[in-house]
C-alpha cells in the first residue's frame, strides 16, 4: 500500500512539474508581445522596453520561469492588465461557480445513471435495457455545445421555465434564485456524464451479476435488492472510477461552454474573456489552476480505487 502511494505521488509530482513548464512555455514561446498588447499597436519602442523590463520579459526564459514559479508558490499568479485584479482573486471569485455546476450536475447524473444501469442490468437486452442503450447512444452524439443552445432555446426562450443567459445570481445573494439559474446548465453537463456512467456501470454490472459470488449471495437467501446494492454495485464501479479522469476533463470543457453561453462568470468565462483581451498572466494562471486541479482530482480518484477494491493496491 505504501509503495503504491509512493509510486503515485512521484508520478503526480512529475506531471505537475510537466504541467507548469508546459503552461509557461506555451504562453511564452508563442508569437505575440505582451508589452504591445498592453500598450496598444502605437507604442513607442522605449515604452515597450520599459514595460518589458517591468514585467521581467527581457530576462532569459528559464529565469522567467523560475521567477514565475516561485511567485506561484507564494500564491501570486500575477495581475490582470485590464482590471488590475490579481489572478488569484479572479480565480477565487469564479471557481465556486464551476464547483457548484460540477457538483449539481454530478448529483443529477448519479441519480439518473445508477438506477437506470441497475434496472437495465437486471434484465439485459429486454425492453428497458434496449431503450436506455439506444437513448444513451444517441446522447453520445449530443455534446454540450450542441445540446446547450437547444435547451436554452426550449426552456429559457420558448417556455420561460428557467432563466436565460446573463441572469446568474450568486449563491450568497439569493439561495433559491441561484439554484434556479443552476438547473439548466447542470442538466446540460449531467447529460454527458449520464451516458458515461450508465454505459460503464451497466456493462460491469451485467458481468458482475454472472459471477459465482452473486450466485453464492443468492443462495444465502438475500433479496435481489440487497444483492444489487451490497454485493454487485461495489465491484462494478471500478471502470466508473477509472473513467473519472476522462470525465473530469470533458466536464470542465462542458462548464466552459455553458458559462459562456449563459454568461455565468465562472473560470471558463473568465478564461475566454482574458484570451480575447490577450491578458496573458490571467490566462496562464487560470490554465495552471485548472490543469493542476484536474491532475489532483485524478490522483484522489486513484485513492478511491483502493478503497472500493482493496486488491488494487496490492497489484
Amino acid at each position, binding site marked *: 500500500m505504501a509503495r503504491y502511494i509512493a509510486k503515485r505521488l512521484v508520478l503526480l509530482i512529475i506531471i505537475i512539474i510537466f504541467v507548469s513548464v508546459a503552461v509557461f512555455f506555451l504562453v511564452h514561446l508563442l508569437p505575440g508581445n505582451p508589452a504591445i498588447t498592453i500598450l496598444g499597436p502605437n507604442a513607442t519602442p522605449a515604452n515597450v522596453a520599459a514595460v518589458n523590463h517591468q514585467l521581467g520579459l527581457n530576462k532569459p526564459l528559464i529565469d522567467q520561469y523560475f521567477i514565475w514559479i516561485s511567485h506561484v508558490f507564494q500564491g501570486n499568479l500575477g495581475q490582470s492588465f485590464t482590471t488590475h485584479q490579481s489572478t488569484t482573486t479572479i480565480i477565487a471569485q469564479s471557481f465556486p461557480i464551476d464547483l457548484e455546476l460540477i457538483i449539481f450536475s454530478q448529483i443529477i447524473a448519479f441519480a439518473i445513471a445508477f438506477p437506470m444501469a441497475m434496472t437495465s442490468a437486471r434484465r439485459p437486452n429486454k425492453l428497458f435495457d434496449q431503450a436506455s442503450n439506444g437513448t444513451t447512444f444517441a446522447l*453520445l452524439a449530443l455534446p454540450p455545445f450542441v445540446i446547450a443552445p437547444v435547451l436554452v432555446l426550449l426552456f429559457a*426562450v420558448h417556455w420561460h421555465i428557467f432563466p436565460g443567459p446573463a441572469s446568474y445570481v450568486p449563491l450568497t445573494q439569493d439561495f433559491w434564485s441561484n439554484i434556479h439559474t443552476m438547473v439548466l446548465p447542470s442538466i446540460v453537463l449531467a447529460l454527458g456524464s449520464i451516458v458515461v456512467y450508465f454505459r460503464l456501470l451497466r456493462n460491469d454490472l451485467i458481468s458482475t451479476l454472472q459471477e459465482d459470488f452473486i450466485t453464492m449471495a443468492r443462495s444465502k437467501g438475500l433479496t435481489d435488492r440487497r444483492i444489487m446494492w451490497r454485493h454487485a454495485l461495489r465491484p462494478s464501479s471500478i471502470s466508473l472510477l477509472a473513467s473519472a479522469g476522462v470525465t473530469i476533463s470533458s466536464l470542465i470543457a462542458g462548464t466552459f461552454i455553458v458559462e459562456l*453561453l449563459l454568461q455565468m462568470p465562472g473560470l471558463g468565462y473568465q478564461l475566454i474573456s482574458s484570451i480575447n483581451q490577450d491578458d496573458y498572466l490571467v490566462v496562464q494562471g487560470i490554465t495552471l489552476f485548472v490543469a493542476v486541479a484536474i491532475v489532483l482530482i485524478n490522483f484522489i480518484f486513484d485513492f478511491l480505487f483502493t478503497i472500493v477494491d482493496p486488491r488494487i493496491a496490492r497489484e
Partner: protein
Amino acid sequence: MSSVVTDDLAEIKEEIAAEEAADPTRKKLGWLFWVCTSFIVLVALLATFASLLPLPNPDLGNYSSVQNGGPSWSHWLGTDDLYRDILSRLIYGARISLVVGFGGALIGLVLGGIPAMYSAYRRGRVDTVLNTTSYVFLAFPAIVAVIAIVSFWGHALWKITLIIGLFAAPLIYRIVRASTLSYASRDFVLAAKALGASDTRILAREILPNIMPTIVSFGLIAVATIIVLEGSLAFLGLSVEPPTPSWGNMLNEGASLLTGAKGQTNPWLVIFPATAMFLLLFCLNVVADKLRAYFDVTEIKL
C-alpha cells in the same frame, strides 16, 4: 484461478459461443450501418464539391433576401442575421468538421500509431520511455492545453488540426500499442522473422493487416471526439475566424441571437447546425460501433 475444472454450465455456454463464432452467416453489419455510412459519405461529397453546387456565397449575405428568415423555397434552411443562406453555410461548414476530424485523427495516427507499432514490436528502452510519456500526456487535460495554445498561436484551420492531432496521439499510441502487443509474438510473426523479413516488412505485412480493424473502429471514435473538440473550440470562438462558417461557430451565433442581445432571435440558426452535428456524430459512432462488433474488436482498457 484456472485450476478448477470447468463448470458444466460454463462449458456448455462456451461450446455454443464457439460454434456461433465459427458461423460467419450470423454476423451482419445491419441496415443502420449502411444508412450511417451513406450519410457520412454524402456529407463528405457535399463538402468537397460545395463550390460546384448551386449555392449562394456562404460568407456574404444577399441583402435583398429576408434577414433571419425561416425555411423557404429560395433558402431551404432559412437565413441568418447577416442575410446569409444557412444551408450553404452548413455545407461549407462541414468542411471544417471533416478536415479537422479526419485530418486530426490522421495526424494522431501518424504521430501515435507508427511509434506505437515499433515500440510494441521491439520493446526495450524506447518502449518504456514512450509508454511513460504517453501516460504523462494522458494525465494532462487536453482541452485546457488546446484552448491555451490556440488562443495564443492562432485560429488557422491547419494549426487547429495539427494541435488537436498532437493531443490525440498519446491516446492512439496506447490503443495501437495494446493491439500490436497482442500480435507481436504470434507464430506467423515469428515465422516471418525466421525467414529473414525486416522489421518494417513484418509490421506492414504481418501485423498491420491484423490490427487494421482496431485502428479503423477506434479511429472513427477519435474522429468523432475531435469533431466535438473542434466544435467546442468554435463555440468558444477559438476555431476558424468568421466569416468562415463552421458548425460550432454557427451554433455560437445562433446562441448569441437567442439571448436577444441584438434584439432578435433565430431558432433555425440553432436547430439546423445542432441537427447536422448530432447526425454526423451519431453516424460516426454507429459505424465505429458496428465495425467493432463485426470484427470482434474487444474494448481496450487504457
